[in-house]
């Protein structure tokens, strides 16, 4: 009878804690002493309790030791990384820090000059982003047109996407800016170099973003389209009022990804002679015998990117809290 009862006791309550494993892990976690101490103490206690036969309390202590070990791993890695970076920047009397962050970083005139350049970057990417949003949607919709009759249109849209995704952005910039200028076509005459840069970036990023749109549109279940059509809405109306609005909500994260890419690639236009932020940073570096101009330009890009990421997250959260259950 008693034997039978013992058989139904779950294995988990009979098992002794893996004292050795805990001890080994907590000794290792001493590499990060703050939480490692706690891990070691808990594992020692687990061993004691296990020996005295109080398995339940021993398992609890073991569990605590395990948790402290994970804390050691998480926080310890971060701590070591911070220490490593500090060492890197302070080595040789802070040689590296002096390169990246010398006095120029406090130079008001340098910042003014950079901001003047950065304003051009902002102009370029704001206009380009608006155009990309429209252009890429057009390309995606063309590529998704149904029916045999539209096969040539689908082909052209696909060919455009393939082409402009494969050519490096800097090459497209050269080809468009210098090529179109050289040709001196009547209508394009009135455009300046900055306009050509916008066109080049729209062509490159339009190709990327059209694929994002396409994936978004295709991710909307066909039953949504069927429901729209069944109400008498035309193909275009179904796309416009039902499918695309849902797709756009879904693609905000990858869209932001491509937009950040575009914003950074505005720095490429310094290669065709526009004095934007990178060009000015280079100028500062050369004229003041420093390297910190690049750091300052990088800080400007960081400063505009992080708020956008947070804003996109906020936007998505707001939409979800409105439309989703719970």
């Amino acid at each position, binding site marked *: 009878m008693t034997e039978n009862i013992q058989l139904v006791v779950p294995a988990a309550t009979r098992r002794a804690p893996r004292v050795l494993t805990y001890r080994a892990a907590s000794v290792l976690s001493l590499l990060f002493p703050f939480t490692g101490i706690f891990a070691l103490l808990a594992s020692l206690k687990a061993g004691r309790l296990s020996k005295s036969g109080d398995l339940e309390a021993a398992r609890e202590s073991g569990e605590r030791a395990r948790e402290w070990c994970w804390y050691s791993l998480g926080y310890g890695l971060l701590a070591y990384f911070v220490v490593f970076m500090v060492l890197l920047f302070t080595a040789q009397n802070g040689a590296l820090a002096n390169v990246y962050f010398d006095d120029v970083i406090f130079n008001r005139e340098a910042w003014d000059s950079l901001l003047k350049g950065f304003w051009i970057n902002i102009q370029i990417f704001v206009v380009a982003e608006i155009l990309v949003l429209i252009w890429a949607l057009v390309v995606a919709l063309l590529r998704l047109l149904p029916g045999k009759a539209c096969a040539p249109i689908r082909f052209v849209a696909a060919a455009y996407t393939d082409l402009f995704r494969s050519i490096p952005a800097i090459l497209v910039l050269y080809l468009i800016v210098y090529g179109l200028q050289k040709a001196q076509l009547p209508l394009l005459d009135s455009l300046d170099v900055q306009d050509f840069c916008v066109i080049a970036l729209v062509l490159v990023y339009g190709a990327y973003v059209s694929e994002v749109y396409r994936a978004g549109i295709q991710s909307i279940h066909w*039953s*949504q389209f*069927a*429901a729209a*059509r*069944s*109400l*008498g809405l*035309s193909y275009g109306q179904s796309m416009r009022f039902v499918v695309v609005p849902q797709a756009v909500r879904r693609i905000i994260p990858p869209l932001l990804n491509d937009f950040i890419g575009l914003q950074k690639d505005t720095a490429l236009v310094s290669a065709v002679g526009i004095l934007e932020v990178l060009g000015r940073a280079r100028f500062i570096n050369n004229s003041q015998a420093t390297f910190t101009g690049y750091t300052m330009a990088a800080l400007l890009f960081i400063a505009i990117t992080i708020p956008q990421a947070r804003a996109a997250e906020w936007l998505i959260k707001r939409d979800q809290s409105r439309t*989703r259950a719970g």
Partner: protein
Amino acid sequence: MAFLQMEGVHKYFGENHVLRGVDLVVERHQVVCLIGASGCGKSTLLRCINALEPISDGLIRIDGNRVSGTGVDLNDLRADVGIVFQSFNLFPHMTVLDNVILAPMKVLKRKKAAATSIGMDLLQRVGLAEKADEYPDRLSGGQQQRVAIVRALAMDPRVLLLDEITSALDPELVAEVLNIVRELAADGMTMMLATHEMGFAREVSSKVCFVHEGVIHEEGPPELIFGDPQRERTQAFLKRIVDAGRL
């Protein structure tokens, strides 16, 4: 002249011959129930009527006018033939009211105020007026399906197709949806239902069609089909339903 007529309708999905010559007549104000095992072609039959699926052969007429094949304005046809789906298919990014008034505004070109007043009346009728500004995902399944029915009704359809509209609902939510169908039937709405709710089919329909292997195997008034089915397949199907305690 019959209101809706299907003559020798065939439908292939690739190699798969789903409808194999469907002949069916629906009169005005009739409620026709399609019963039959899953995969027998009930849903496909309904989806062919409003051309969500183009038919491979045969003819469909409404009021004697051909509505299948080429040269038919599908948007006009669909504005006349409403359909409600098993999975509701409400538009999740729009409020309940916007779901209801979208098609009347865009297809029937109704003014927003007019569409809203009609839509609110219909929502009132199904007891969901206070949910007008809510988003669909925040409603229960039964409420969503009632909204879907209202969305179809807002187009003033001449016939309503109901494709297993209670199959995705929890049992306790089925009644609230069926009650609406009951009321519509009493109001004289012409309807075709694909359904597994045999008791309901028996109660509400003027004609029951047993669909088997892509044809209408047996049809007749509900007393006859449920009480004294003539053909062996129908008898076997209904016996399984009775054995499962569903009738």
